[in-house]
């Protein structure tokens, strides 16, 4: 194993870019080495490597050179104390090599491995001995000569995530104390390729998820820096619910972190989020639903997949055909996105112990977003097999939170909202009572009852019981004011246009089924 002093000396006195790259690569190779399998020798080598890593990190000139290489891809001249120091050596792609070296230093990829304590010690030394966080942020945000080097910036974000996982508090305080540290990270949350590459942004997203999970200050700073607008802009650009992109999933996880503390207020005030949230809860935007609606049968896709699979595996058997009546389903990733969105709104309302005035203001604010309410109600009252019980229960609990302890106006708005069920229109409360009397799984029944309890007001409950005692006159007839007027009420008349619509819809359904059969 080469001597540390020699290596440091070799790096600092390099005369060409090639020398610098060569030293850094050999350093990386040292830590990524494959050690002998003999346990005694392994332990000895492991300890020696760790001592070497510690000495490297604690060497001030070495770490200054590393910082300079990260920030400006330049190795400073060793004669900095002279009156006219010579210019440093510019090393193209030095940042990539330097980040790779630092990554190998903290988490070697060979058989060499540190214990958790050893990794923590190294990270602590790294953070203390150099402005590494600042250098990494500089490199990430405003890299010189690596503008197009996506790999270097992605590795840089990965390195920051690794450092944070080992020393969360020290790294967080470094990021916050660095001028514009966090703001620069948040600025990179964009879907604009000219600002940041997609893979770099995704790494930053992951870094911010870990940062915001543990630190209240970080949460507030990100949220107040238009965090929600940026996240929902990315979500919309990535297609929202359709397809269930992992990036959308990550954005929602981060949004769920941000909504804690005072973030809820910002979420509810952002116009981008208010328009995007209902779309994320719309099952009809699922991949299979869109294909189904646009006339492309899901069977076609399945059949194609099966043919491709058969070709790849070399089997000559005909692909098995699925039932032509199979309904479109949500993809597992889309399912997760809906759950995360419901959780986001639920968290925005706040815990049950939050002050009543704040909670009521949030409840009123959410209740005024009619598309959002409508989407949540559709999910909670759906009996279609496309909506899983998990989603239905989450939606029921969300609506319960919106209405629990809310002003009567909010409760009535939800109770009287009209929804379409099987060609007819009915109010939410009537549908809820119907659901409650259906045989459902126990959690769904209990959550339905919870919502009924939350949404009812003294007036609405008395009216419902009164209507059971004396049904109200239907709106299309004038009640005859005799003692038995209800006996003469006609059944609900169906206008000719309504009957035609019904017939046409049935014919259309038949055509769709016929087409699906024909394609098979």
């Amino acid at each position, binding site marked *: 194993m080469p001597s540390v002093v020699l290596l440091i000396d070799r790096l600092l006195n390099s005369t060409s870019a090639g020398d610098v790259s060569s030293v850094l690569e050999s350093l990386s190779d040292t830590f990524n080495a494959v050690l002998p399998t003999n346990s005694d020798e392994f332990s000895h080598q492991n300890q020696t490597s760790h001592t070497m890593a510690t000495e490297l990190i604690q060497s001030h000139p070495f770490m200054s050179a590393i910082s300079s290489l990260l920030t400006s891809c330049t190795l400073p001249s060793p004669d900095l104390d002279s009156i006219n120091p010579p210019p440093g050596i510019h090393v193209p792609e030095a940042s990539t090599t330097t980040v790779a070296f630092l990554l190998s230093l903290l988490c070697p990829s060979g058989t060499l491995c540190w214990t958790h304590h050893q990794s923590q010690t190294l990270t602590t030394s790294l953070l203390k001995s150099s402005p590494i966080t600042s250098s990494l942020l500089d490199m990430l945000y405003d890299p010189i000569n690596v503008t197009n080097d996506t790999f270097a910036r992605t590795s840089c974000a990965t390195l920051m995530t690794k450092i944070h996982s080992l020393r969360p508090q020290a790294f967080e305080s470094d990021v916050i104390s660095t001028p514009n540290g966090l703001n620069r990270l948040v600025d990179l949350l964009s879907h604009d390729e000219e600002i940041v590459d997609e893979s770099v942004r995704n790494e930053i997203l992951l870094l911010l998820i870990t940062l915001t999970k543990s630190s209240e200050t970080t949460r507030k700073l990100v949220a107040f820096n238009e965090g929600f607008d940026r996240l929902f802009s990315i979500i919309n650009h990535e297609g929202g619910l359709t397809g269930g992109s992992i990036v959308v999933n990550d954005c929602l996880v981060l949004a769920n972190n941000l909504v804690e503390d005072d973030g809820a207020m910002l979420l509810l005030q952002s116009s981008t989020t208010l328009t995007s949230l209902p779309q994320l809860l719309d099952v009809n935007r699922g991949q299979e639903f869109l294909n189904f609606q646009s006339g492309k049968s899901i069977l076609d896709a399945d059949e194609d997949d099966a043919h491709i699979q058969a070709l790849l595996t070399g089997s000559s058997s005909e692909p098995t055909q699925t039932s032509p009546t199979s309904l479109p389903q949500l993809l597992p990733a889309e399912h997760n996105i809906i759950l995360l969105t419901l959780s986001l709104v639920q968290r925005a309302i706040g815990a*049950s112990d939050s002050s009543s005035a704040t909670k009521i203001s949030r409840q009123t604010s959410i209740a005024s977003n009619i598309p959002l309410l409508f989407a949540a109600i559709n999910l909670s009252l759906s009996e279609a097999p496309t909506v899983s019980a998990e989603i239905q229960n989450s939606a029921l*609990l969300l609506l*319960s939170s919106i209405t*629990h302890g809310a002003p009567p106006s909010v409760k009535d708005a939800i109770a009287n909202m009209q929804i379409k069920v099987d060609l007819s229109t009915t109010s939410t409360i009537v549908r*809820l*009572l119907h*659901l*409650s*009397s*259906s*045989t*459902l799984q*126990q*959690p769904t*029944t*209990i*959550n*339905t*009852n*919870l919502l*009924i*309890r939350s949404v*009812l*007001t*003294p007036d*609405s*409950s*008395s009216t*419902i*019981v*009164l209507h*059971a*005692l004396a049904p109200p006159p239907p709106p299309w007839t004038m009640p005859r004011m005799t003692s038995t007027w209800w006996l003469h009420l006609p059944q609900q008349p169906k206008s000719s246009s309504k009957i035609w619509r019904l017939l046409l819809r049935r014919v259309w359904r038949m055509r769709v089924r016929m087409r699906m059969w024909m394609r098979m």
Partner: protein
Amino acid sequence: MADAGADADVDADVTGPCGALAALLDAGGEAAKEMLLRIPANSNNDSLSDVILVWLDNWTEQQVADQRPTVVLLVKLLCHWCQSCPTACTAILSRPEAISIFNMLKITGPPTMLKSFAALLVGSLLEFFGQGHGQGQGHGQRGSNGGWSPSTIVSLVRKNVGLGNFTKLLEHPRDVPSAWGEGSPFSEAELELSGLKRWYGDAVDGIRKAIVLEVTGGAGLGEGDGGAGEGDDQLMNQQSEEVSEKRAATICYNLRPD
């Protein structure tokens, strides 16, 4: 005993409507409770409370020892119905099957949720029965109807289980929080459960006040049973112990160094 699968189906059928009706009754108040009494539940024009009582009576006659969720839910629904509604109390007590509620208190074995809810129902009947008739009168002077009065309810309780045991049954779900999960249909939703526990606790507090009023200051003492019996002593001792415990806890709290 009936088929277990069929029982589970009945339980599933009853859980939803019972909860929804309880919510309607709680939110609608006395007006909704009285109106629901007038809605016929079968072709004989019996109200829903009558149908439930007949069902419960049949169930008690079969001497089934286990507590089925359906029975607990139906008794709980009657509890919601009776609270703050003297008319519902009168309607329930006017049925001969009402005695089955008192019989539930006598089921052998340790306290269960069924017995606790039966005690809550009996307590609610005691607290609210005849309240509308005795305006301006003392607690003991509340009206009687069909032979029933608060004092006769207390006498029946005393005869069946004793007032001390009755109070223990009432307090069982508060003393043993795990009781809410013992085969009861309440253990799934945390939000629902917390609301339910609060409702139960408030009801028990009201009932205990009503019992003390009836036993200590009411005319009921002089009517039938000739003074405070063993049950009353037990009740008084238990309440004295609770007051002492609370006092000791307060003293400890005040003496804490911080």
